[in-house]
């Protein structure tokens, strides 16, 4: 049709009705991170929960310290500590039901342990005897994920599959501030929102991606503000306030379970230690900044609240510490044993059935090992 014809036929009309697909207002995070401890909201918090959180934080801190010590003794290849981030780690684990799934990043060993994983099995990846030390299906904990943000679409797919099957399962996926820059973050959040999948995304904004501070990572008002661009609610929480993180995540899990779709939670926290034992944090930040955060320590915050309100006494605190020490002693002892290693395993799990090629290679290695046993280096 030529323009001439069109002109005769058409009248300019207003644009076909266009509506924002959802109301953006409720999706936007509050201007300040949500807090419970030290605020009026604390009065509403369940004392039993607070005590449970406290015990787990204390255990978590000790776990981090012990694992870091194990790197120095050569018992771990590397350990990315979550010291200072224990509130996020613990709350993420505690808000989930048994049937739910946790998708941890490589820094979230502690969350897996708080969910009930054997502390030694959780360290397999970092000890280096295998890539994953536990059966993810048994524990509903996905393998600790190293390629940043790549676990997020897995969480979405799993949650979606569960919903399709009619199972009442929520997936909680953890990622760092740095990881939020990856394309997989974007794609996962978008799929989750379009599918209304029961997923909760927890961004631990600990201020750094190795040496790179948040200001070089994003110019957004907050990472939680990204949520509106996917059509899901964004929530901002004080990541060192275990009660607040627990509450915000619980709400998000409940919302997801009820069919309300995904939520993006940004927890403002801080990586108090270096990126890993191999990192030298003095190259990119000063002590003063670290100290302000040490003062806002998740354990101290919670212990203070509990003490002030008479919900815990010294013996209660001591009991938590004793339990933590017992866990650490057990961990130390078991990690000091060499793990069993079988080189033949290299070929066992590449495919359901080894290919003819892998069988040949396995035979070759077996022969080599036998020769090694027999005689010295040629």
């Amino acid at each position, binding site marked *: 049709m030529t323009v001439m014809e069109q002109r005769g036929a058409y009248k300019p009309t207003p644009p076909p009705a266009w509506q924002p697909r959802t109301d953006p207002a409720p999706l936007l995070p509050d201007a300040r991170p949500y807090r419970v401890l030290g605020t009026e909201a604390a009065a509403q918090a369940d004392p039993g929960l607070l005590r449970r959180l406290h015990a787990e934080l204390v255990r978590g801190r000790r776990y981090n310290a012990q694992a870091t010590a194990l790197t120095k003794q050569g018992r771990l290849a590397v350990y990315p500590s979550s010291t200072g981030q224990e509130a996020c780690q613990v709350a993420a684990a505690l808000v989930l039901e048994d049937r739910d799934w946790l998708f941890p990043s490589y820094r979230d060993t502690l969350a897996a342990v708080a969910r009930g994983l054997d502390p030694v099995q959780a360290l397999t990846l970092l000890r280096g005897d295998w890539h994953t030390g536990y*059966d993810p299906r048994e524990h509903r904990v996905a393998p600790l994920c190293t390629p940043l943000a790549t676990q997020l679409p897995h969480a979405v797919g799993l949650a979606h599959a569960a919903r*399709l099957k009619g199972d009442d399962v929520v997936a909680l996926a953890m990622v760092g501030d740095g990881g939020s820059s990856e394309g997989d973050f974007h794609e996962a959040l978008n799929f989750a929102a379009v599918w209304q999948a029961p997923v909760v995304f927890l961004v631990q904004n600990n201020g750094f991606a190795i040496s790179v501070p948040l200001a070089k990572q994003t110019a957004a008002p907050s990472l939680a503000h990204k949520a509106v661009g996917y059509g899901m609610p964004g929530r901002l929480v004080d990541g060192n306030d275990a009660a607040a993180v627990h509450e915000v995540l619980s709400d998000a899990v409940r919302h997801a379970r009820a069919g309300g779709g995904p939520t993006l939670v940004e927890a403002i926290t801080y990586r108090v230690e270096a990126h890993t034992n191999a990192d030298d944090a003095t190259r990119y930040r000063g002590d003063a900044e670290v100290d302000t955060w040490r003062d806002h320590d998740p354990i101290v915050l919670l212990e203070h609240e509990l003490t002030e309100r008479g919900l815990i006494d010294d013996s209660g605190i001591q009991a938590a510490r004793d339990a933590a020490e017992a866990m650490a002693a057990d961990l130390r002892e078991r990690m000091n044993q060499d793990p069993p290693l079988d080189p033949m395993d290299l070929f066992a799990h590449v495919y359901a059935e080894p290919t003819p090629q892998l069988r040949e290679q396995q035979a070759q290695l077996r022969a080599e090992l036998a020769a090694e046993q027999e005689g010295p280096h040629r």
Partner: protein
Amino acid sequence: MTTVALKPATMAQALTRAMRDAMAADPTVHVMGEDVGTLGGVFRVTDGLAKEFGEDRCTDTPLAEAGILGTAVGMAMYGLRPVVEMQFDAFAYPAFEQLISHVSRMRNRTRGALPLPLTIRVPYGGGIGGVEHHSDSSEAYYIATPGLHVVTPATVADAYGLLRAAIASDDPVVFLEPKRLYWSKASWNPDDPQTVEPIGRAVVRRSGRSATLITYGPSVPVCLEAAEAARDEGWDLEVVDLRSLVPFDDETVCASVRRTGRAVVVHESGGFGGPGGEIAARVTERCFHHLEAPVLRVAGFDIPYPPPMLERHHLPGVDRILDAVGRLQWEAEG
């Protein structure tokens, strides 16, 4: 289940039928990708599946390949059998991190606890007059990634049989569909109980005594044509269709080459670093004393896939294959 008379059927129809039968037989099979639902895929290979099984079983995803494959991984972790369509070969590249770092490794990572029964369908190769990024042969990337099976049919029957096997496999399978064979036809009766073709077995498509053409996918018909033409030159060529690049059927291939003493590997994918090097090397390792000549390769040039008007110069054709056969040092024999 309604049955449609499809004889003769196209490869595209056989593929559709394979998915349909798999979906009917197993409720955990889910098809997903860009435009696979309402439209039935840009090649119509998923035509009718959304209608028959609903949009939850055959899903139009958002437009993001890493997201498609990544969510499929999660679905497989929960016990589904996703069948993912990548719209074109080059549009699978955004999903490579998910493919290499997760799809291929999840079983290994978890000592077998988390197998990923995932099929990734990739329409591949040229010869259809597509503009850039629509004609890549990307199999070199897949075969260099341990943990993946890499399969490609060349016939209508294999399209059905191998895709059924891929979907049934407890391992991830990259299923490479030769685009230009989508419309190839064969008399094939889908209502006969179809044999699922086990993955990992090559087949001799044409017997011959002078030399072996080792090939797969879109180059199989070209090699068969070349073998016919070669009769004029007095050569009786055997044609082996690999069907599966991983696992590789050394037995069938080497048996042929030991018989003929000469071989040419033919594929469309670029020569340098392409599958032909692997194939030639492993055949040579295993059949050295049977070889009258080095194993030669006929492949695409080592260039980005050319624009449609020039693609015929790039694609291995009958003449180029026969030229290579001619270089197999025949004088040495006689």
